């Protein structure tokens, strides 16, 4: 059992395969610290030694406290039944008392487990039990216990064993196992998913997902059809002249056929821009297949540097008329963002895809730079007579978002792309921020594989490496710095120190840490004063602030430096009990269920309260 703990995948770290990232299982909070604790309790409960069973039950009592009302039914039922067995083997109870204990545990098991399967119209227990493979005689035993004669102890014991076995087979040995992906158990799965959804974002209106998915598929097909017709048209043009260079010119003169196709796509774009962008980036269009390159007489260069961030000219001309027609302001934003997203995800596919994505982004950004710069445009036009521009008008984009997208898809080309973005971006980031960002990007991507290490892509989906907020904050800080000469030095110190730290950690290949570090470093220095203040305020008190230099950020809540995963690590060997003097003692009040009946009987003297109640209330009211 213990060995399996090591094999379990580590949920805290992204897996290496991209497929895992897409089918990310729901991360949930449970009562056990880790798998070792779970295994220990399961083994303890089922071991048959009542001392070990009692220890496991004690642990389950802590789980129950952690879970509160969310305690898994199966764990609760198992614990109740095991408790009966422990009592039984202790020999302290007589058979009648044992029957009562076993009885309640069994009744609760049958009812609670089958109630989960109940529908709006109630279904007979027997039928439900049959569905989930609980022996019918256990259901009959429950019936006897609640409505009939109390059964004999032997039968209760047998029932308990059978049910415990059922729980082990259906719950304990399947849970936390490797059978996560097996078919779900019909409606319960959906119910759970819905409630999980509810927990996360209940105020979002839910859509019938399946239908939406189907619609999306159909739409995607539609766009593809039109795009294929565009491709066919361009190839047809090429065949008429039998020369690639000549066809370039022909392509650039728009034909009525191309205009018609363009109009169709624009129409589709009205409906769903995202999907059009998606289709354009699916294999065979802006990202060519090998056969397509061959037809266009383009040699594929495996060496990424050789293309110098340019799309092969023929291929560019092939798509330019379509793109120029489509690239409105909003669509440009969507397309480039989509490209970055694709770039992030395509580490595992052929070399063609990342290559073309990078080059298309680069081409588009350069195009935007030319158009947005205005004057320079003409010079460039003179140089490249045969190549038409992608953009005719200025395209102000949401640059901050693009920067984010770019940073979320780190690869060898990120510094180049980032530089393009930062140059075109209006309003510009402060010079120092740009410098630092570029520096960070190059440090980060240096020496990585074609798309750096696999871990990063899924990390980014949850936390951007370096958010714009932090940049803005840095910019704000720097504005303040201008006014306060004193702080300038401090700031520089911090920056320098951070840079130093980054270099060291880069070698350790701790990507996440490197990237978040500058911020935490700064935050830390800001907090030091506050911590010192708090420490002073706590002088002479039992409460203290740890003086040790601990890198708290490396340790999740519930774990301390040096703490192991030993499931017995938190066991106490001694403790003292303390009773309180000044607190109300409960026993003097009767439980409400028994005295409510009395209350309705008119009291003889018209007394509103009993003497006892009177004291109670008086003590509460004495202050006014």
């Amino acid at each position, binding site marked *: 059992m213990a060995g399996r703990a090591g094999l379990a*995948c580590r*949920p*805290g770290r992204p897996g290496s395969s991209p497929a895992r990232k897409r089918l990310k299982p729901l*991360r949930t909070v*449970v009562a056990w610290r*880790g798998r070792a604790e779970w295994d220990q309790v399961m083994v303890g409960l089922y071991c048959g030694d009542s001392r070990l069973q009692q220890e496991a039950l004690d642990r389950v*009592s802590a*789980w*129950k406290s952690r879970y509160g009302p969310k305690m*898994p039914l*199966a*764990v609760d039922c198992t614990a109740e039944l095991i408790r009966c067995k422990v009592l039984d083997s202790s020999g302290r109870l007589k058979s009648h008392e044992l029957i009562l204990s076993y009885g309640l545990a069994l009744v609760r098991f049958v009812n609670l487990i089958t109630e*989960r399967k*109940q529908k*709006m119209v109630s279904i007979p227990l027997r039928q439900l039990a049959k569905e*989930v493979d609980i022996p019918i005689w256990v259901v009959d035993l429950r019936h006897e216990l609640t409505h009939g004669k109390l059964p004999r102890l032997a039968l209760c014991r047998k029932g308990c064993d059978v049910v415990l076995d059922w729980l082990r087979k259906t*719950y304990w040995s*399947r849970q*936390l196992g490797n059978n996560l992906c097996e078919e779900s158990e019909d409606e*319960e799965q959906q119910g759970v998913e819905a409630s*999980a959804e509810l927990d996360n*974002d209940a105020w979002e*209106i839910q859509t019938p997902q399946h239908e939406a998915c189907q619609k999306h598929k159909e739409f995607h097909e539609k766009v593809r059809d039109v795009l294929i017709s565009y491709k066919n048209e361009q190839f047809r043009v090429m065949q008429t002249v039998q020369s690639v260079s000549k066809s370039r010119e022909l392509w650039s003169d728009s034909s009525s056929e191309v205009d018609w196709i363009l109009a169709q796509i624009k129409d589709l774009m009205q409906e769903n821009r995202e999907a059009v962008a998606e289709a354009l980036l699916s294999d065979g269009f802006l990202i060519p297949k090998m056969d397509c390159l061959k037809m266009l007489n383009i040699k594929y260069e495996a060496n990424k540097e050789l293309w110098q961030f340019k799309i092969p000219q023929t291929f560019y001309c092939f798509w330019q008329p379509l793109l120029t027609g489509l690239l409105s302001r909003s669509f440009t934003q969507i397309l480039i963002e989509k490209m970055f997203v694709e770039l992030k995800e395509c580490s595992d596919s052929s070399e063609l895809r990342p290559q073309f994505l990078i080059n298309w982004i680069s081409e588009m950004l350069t195009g935007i730079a030319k158009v947005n710069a205005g004057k320079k445009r003409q010079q460039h036009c003179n140089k490249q007579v045969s190549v038409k521009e992608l953009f005719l008008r200025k395209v102000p984009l949401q640059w901050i978002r693009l920067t984010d997208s770019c940073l979320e898809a780190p690869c060898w080309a990120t510094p180049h792309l980032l530089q393009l973005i930062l140059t075109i971006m209006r309003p510009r980031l402060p010079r120092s921020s740009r410098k630092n960002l570029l520096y960070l990007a190059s440090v980060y991507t240096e020496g990585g594989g074609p798309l750096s290490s696999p871990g990063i892509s899924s990390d980014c989906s*949850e936390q951007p490496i370096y958010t*714009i*907020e932090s940049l803005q*904050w840095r910019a704000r800080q720097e504005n303040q710095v201008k006014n306060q000469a004193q702080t300038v030095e401090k700031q520089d110190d911090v920056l320098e120190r951070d840079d130093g730290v980054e270099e060291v950690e880069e070698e350790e290949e701790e990507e*996440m840490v490197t990237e978040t570090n500058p911020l*935490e470093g700064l935050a830390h220095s800001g907090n030091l004063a506050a911590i010192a203040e*708090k420490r002073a305020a*706590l002088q002479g008190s*039992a*409460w203290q*602030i*740890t003086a040790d230099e*601990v890198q708290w950020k490396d*340790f*999740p809540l*519930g*774990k*301390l430096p040096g*703490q192991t995963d030993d499931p017995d*690590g938190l*066991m*106490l060997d001694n*403790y*003292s*009990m*303390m009773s*309180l003097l*000044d*607190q109300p003692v409960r026993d003097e*009040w009767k439980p*409400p269920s028994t005295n409510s009946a009395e209350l309705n009987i008119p009291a003889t003297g*018209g007394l*509103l309260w009993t003497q006892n109640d009177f004291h*109670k*209330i008086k*003590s*509460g009211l004495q202050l006014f």
Partner: protein
Amino acid sequence: WRRRRRRRPRRGRAGRAAAAWRGGARRGARPAPPPPASRPPPPHAALPPQALTFTGKCRLRCLYGAVRLLGFAVASHQPGLPVFSPATHCALSLEALPAERPPAADLRQLRAARGLRAALSPLAEARVKVMARFSPECAVVLLEHLDTPVTRFLLSHPPLSRLFEPQVRAGGAVCPPRPAPSQTGLAQSESIFVFPAEDEGVPVVLVCGPKNTGKSTFNRYLINLLLNRLPSIEYMECDIGQTEFTPPGCVSLSNVTEPILGPPFTHQQMPCKMVYYGQTSCEQDTERYLDVVKYVFSSYKKEVPLVINTMGWVKGEGLLLLIDIIRLLSPSHIVQMDVYDWKAMAPLTPEYVHLSPGLYTKGKQQAKCKQVGASEVENWRSSEGEGDASAPEYKLLYVHPEFPRAGIAGEARVHSSILRDMSILGYLGQLQSPDIGAVLPLHSLVPYQVPFSAVALRVIHSDVAPTNIMYAVNASWVGLCRIPDEIKCESEGPVLLTQTPVCDCLGFGIVRGVEMERKLYHILTPVPPENLRQVNCLLLGNISIPNCILVGQQGVEGEIPYVTSDYNYSILGSGKLKKKKHFKRREYAFECDYA
């Protein structure tokens, strides 16, 4: 009807607020009490009958005229007020109030406003636009970008990241924000509570009613209304499931001096008196609940008006408990919210309360039956006005909420547990440093440490084997409390209390770790050190750390304790006990009755 002129946030270039405001505005559906101006309103003016209902967050300043927001009148002398209108709650509505000043004063005011805005706004164009549509009766408000450490912290958790953005329907259309339900009629209540008859003393207003009838919104409105006239009021929270100023599970007494212009998570504050009950409902231990209520109420000095909020549990024992509470707190006014013509809950007239038994107190002997029926209502109507000397004296005011789905449990827009999580996050947001723009993850913060022997420990809601108690305490939410007793401990180990004390709670924290070798608790808490040094008792209740905090921990070494992706909920028995099944059926039938 035109939209009010809106000013763009000045600094939020890429800020969330800018996005949230876009398209979020809608005219309010309900005209405010003052009569509309006789002239047709000029474009983009903010004339009295107009209202702006919005989603988002901002700092609100009234540059000219006056506006009312959830009952609170904002005039130009007020400093900027932080205003929060998240998608999880009813949207706030800004209503323009009629100008009360003479025209001459208006002109002066206008000049002042001009000067102010000239200083403020670099957008001369926008200023010209506003001035072009200016009329003396209108109100001009400035909405500035607002970013607080608390909101930053909340928004950093993925499930809440779109908290201040308008809801988007499946098709991509933006849902118009739903304004808070009816506020007409409430305006009159101002006179009732603010100007009590001289001999009556300060008003003590108890608000009660079933779930989802708008008690909280009413309370906020009432508090704001009172704060228009009074410098401060007190608020007693008896609804342990949905607390206003504290994390959930507490009964508390708070002094309120600032208007409430947002949901609870935006205004977590230290109450004057607080007891940690430790559960979100009191069904399991009503006795301790009453003890706690009594204890907290004893520190109310009757110097300023008190607003008491009660639980939405008004069926069966819940009603009996409410009657106990009424007897105990003897309010001067009871506001009863109800739907369905009192079928869910009888009208709590002084006579009715006088005669009915409570859960722990007895009614006067004439009480015929405990169960509340329609006949009782008849009885009440006929006997109204007949004074009984020994009956409790209070005025009963009742409110019929008419907003759609009022009173239907489970129809609230957000699940109550999410609201509780948000309060906790709002509370923990106080740990964020105000001068750092980025969010620091909780696990990166430096915790406090305290020896086992210095603080007593008690698990409120369940029996935990003492040897295993640290398994319950580790990475849990604890109330930091003070008991009068000295902590005596014979051994090095922790001190476990044998009963749950009713004691002052000074705040909350997360047990960040338990160090077994040095016998130390490590605790993260925003409680200031002056208060923390008094803490000598940790209470562990049924309230847990929001899942998003544990799941969202980034950049840590190894596995995250208590977080797994391997737990399969589709296996039979993996889920929790569902107790609502039967409830649902009955409510369904109930609804049909009214359809």
